[in-house]
């Protein structure tokens, strides 16, 4: 219930108009926000991607019983997590709905900050994680903690291999078959191309390491429900395979010059270079999230943009395999909707959460904002819309369905920071020592014997 308080300016006429205006606004505010007798407002904390669609759904999902208002979180994932955690740790009754990065769900659920998803929907989600439901398995898995669902997947993100078809052709790489990291790095190095990844010291580097380790059939940690007694597994054959690939890339001609500070945006410009004969001018193989397609599409005929012809040269394939013959585990991201455990109106919030994550909402997010759905039914509709190539939609869908989530743990922040601390910079990664070093350090951090 916001009552606009304004100081009346000098001048009687203006003052009268303003008083009338203020009264009107206040009255309207009272009517809409309170319905006369205290109609509650649910606060929905959203991350700043696709906010216009969130605003639309906040309106659409408001009912006679409650209104939904959208509150913006900071743009950085760490800041989002800290802000939500501070509210929830203080048992804030106005934190009703929130957009959660998948890796926050386990942390928050273990702290008992999230309301459990009840009934059929929970069954649907848990079944989906086993591959028998409408939700894509990789997305459903992110919201499950100790066999219960604590959030509802809204949209699911994944990484695919984006590349220049001409570059792959020059290297003689058959992209219809699964390719390995080694092939990709070699192909780029031998043909004046480069390989774009995210290897700055931040969460996306953890995403890369996790995907490499899982692709080799291993895990960074296991038995994460044991909290501090989590088993550290990165000092393994899989860990060494992952380190070997990072080292191979860092030592290769295909490494981009800003490798150690690279993020999702830094390599976008390396795909279509003006001068094909410049160093790494033939374009790149880039591991990046689903937003890339809409991004380059938006560049067609834009100032300093690309031509339709170049855009047609953009290819996409499944995340490369760490080990030949073993299926890759593409990274999973996205946003899940959680309901605050201390919400003053838990039933309304749960109802609103289901409305916000409806199939239609997911389809709208995909078509308006390029944020891909988390359910098969929404994927079918997006595929039918013709906005994206059908093979790309299928690629996204299988990537999320067969993807490898990051560890789910109440101590995820510690795990991620410890791994980043020892694996950064990528140029210093050594398969002989890095996996062991990081395992020892992570063990110490988990046991409270080392500072981060």
């Amino acid at each position, binding site marked *: 219930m916001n009552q606009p308080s304004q100081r009346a300016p000098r001048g009687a006429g203006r003052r009268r108009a303003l008083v009338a205006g203020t009264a009107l606004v206040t009255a309207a505010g009272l009517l809409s926000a309170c319905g006369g007798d205290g109609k509650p407002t649910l606060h929905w904390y959203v991350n700043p991607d696709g906010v216009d669609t969130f605003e639309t759904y906040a309106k659409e999902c408001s009912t006679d019983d409650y209104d939904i208002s959208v509150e913006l979180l900071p743009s950085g994932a760490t800041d989002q997590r800290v802000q939500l955690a501070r509210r929830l740790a203080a048992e804030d009754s106005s934190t009703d709905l929130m957009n959660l990065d998948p890796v926050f769900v386990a*942390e928050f659920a273990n702290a008992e900050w999230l309301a459990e998803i009840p009934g059929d929907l929970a069954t649907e989600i848990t079944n989906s994680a086993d591959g028998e439901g409408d939700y894509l398995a990789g997305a459903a898995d992110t919201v499950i903690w100790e066999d219960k669902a604590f959030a509802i997947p809204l949209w699911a993100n994944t990484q695919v291999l984006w590349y220049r078809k001409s570059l792959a052709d020059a290297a003689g790489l058959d992209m219809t078959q699964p390719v390995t990291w080694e092939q990709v790095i070699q192909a780029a190095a031998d043909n004046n191309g480069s390989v774009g990844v995210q290897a700055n010291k931040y969460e996306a580097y953890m995403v890369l390491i996790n995907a490499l380790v899982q692709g080799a059939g291993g895990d960074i940690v296991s038995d994460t429900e044991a909290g*501090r007694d989590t088993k550290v597994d990165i000092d393994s054959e899989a860990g060494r395979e992952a380190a070997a690939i990072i080292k191979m890339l860092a030592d290769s001609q295909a490494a981009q010059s800003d490798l150690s500070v690279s993020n999702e945006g830094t390599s976008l410009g390396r795909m279509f270079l003006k001068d094909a004969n410049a160093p790494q001018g033939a374009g790149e193989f880039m591991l990046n999230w689903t937003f890339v397609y809409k991004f380059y599409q938006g560049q067609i005929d834009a100032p300093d943009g690309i031509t339709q012809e170049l855009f047609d040269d953009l290819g996409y394939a499944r995340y490369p395999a760490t080990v030949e013959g073993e299926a890759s585990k593409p990274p999973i991201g996205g946003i899940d909707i959680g309901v605050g455990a201390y919400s003053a109106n838990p039933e309304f919030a749960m109802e609103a959460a289901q409305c916000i994550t409806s199939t239609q909402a997911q389809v709208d997010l995909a078509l308006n904002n390029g944020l891909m759905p988390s359910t098969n039914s929404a994927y079918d509709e997006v595929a039918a819309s013709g906005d994206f190539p059908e093979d790309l939609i299928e690629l996204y869908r299988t990537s999320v369905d067969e993807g490898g989530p990051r560890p789910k743990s109440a*101590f995820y*922040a*510690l795990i991620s920071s410890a791994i980043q601390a020892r694996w950064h910079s990528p140029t210093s990664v050594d398969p002989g020592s890095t996996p062991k070093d990081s395992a020892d350090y992570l063990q110490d951090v988990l046991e*409270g014997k080392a*500072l981060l």
Partner: protein
Amino acid sequence: MTTLTAPAPTGNKPVISDRSRAENRLGQKLIAPAIVLMLLVTAFPMLRAIYLSVFDYSLTAPDDREFVGLSNYLTALTDPLFWQTTGITVLYMVVTVAVELVIGFIFAMVMHRVIFARGVIRTSILIPYGIVTVVSGFAWQFAFTSTNGFVNGWLPGISADFNWFGETNSAVIAIMVSEIWKTTPFMSLLLLAGLAQISEDMLEAAQVDGATWWQRLWKVIIPNMRAAIMVAVLFRALDAYRIFDNIFVMTNGAQKTESISFLTYRQTIEQFQLGMGSALSVLLFLSVLLVAFLIVRLFRVDLAAARQEG
């Protein structure tokens, strides 16, 4: 030439009369409510931090909370990261306070002696102190960036694309510059108060005796300001030891620019490790006490004399 100092107030301990004793007692009763309130506000969080610091307590795993005795302290004190951040914090403190003392003294002299446009000059010297630290951090961050800052353009011998935040030394310098710019006015205010206490008679006497300006500064002004200088150094050192905002804004702790406050913040707020975070804040508190003790002892600061209570 001998050092001229104002005669210290002397006298035997006065005999306390019944009346003044009664007044004292009344005074104690009158301030009691304020003391109780102060204790509630300041002592409770401190005791709570000490209590939390002996637990292994993560906000995201409240059920796993466990009493661990002094092991958090042991971990912190044996961890190289703790000592590295302590070292960098001491560096911040020593350099910024030293530079601020010199510049602050010059500013204080200017403010004290200026005869024209007194208001304007005093105000402009004090403006940085009125600016929020976060804002000044952002302003200096922009000034130092290689893409749109002015520092690289103005400094000779620095290439236009030099990245100040790309390595420890230059990032620390940038943070220090921001800190010095922001807090020098505070230093000069405290020193101005000290300058104002020096009697003109002594200065005139020294002048009549043939002391040069330099001799008057070193033999009359500074010795008589010692108490004020030491209070200024003490206040600023304790402040500087807890430096946080500039680092948070300018580097977010990257490139090993992290101070001990920042390390504490990360453990508590970002990693949710309340036990370890509390242990670190207790250690921070103890080290601030140590710094205060050292300065008071080393320079024999008499706080009562500084307040002219004699």
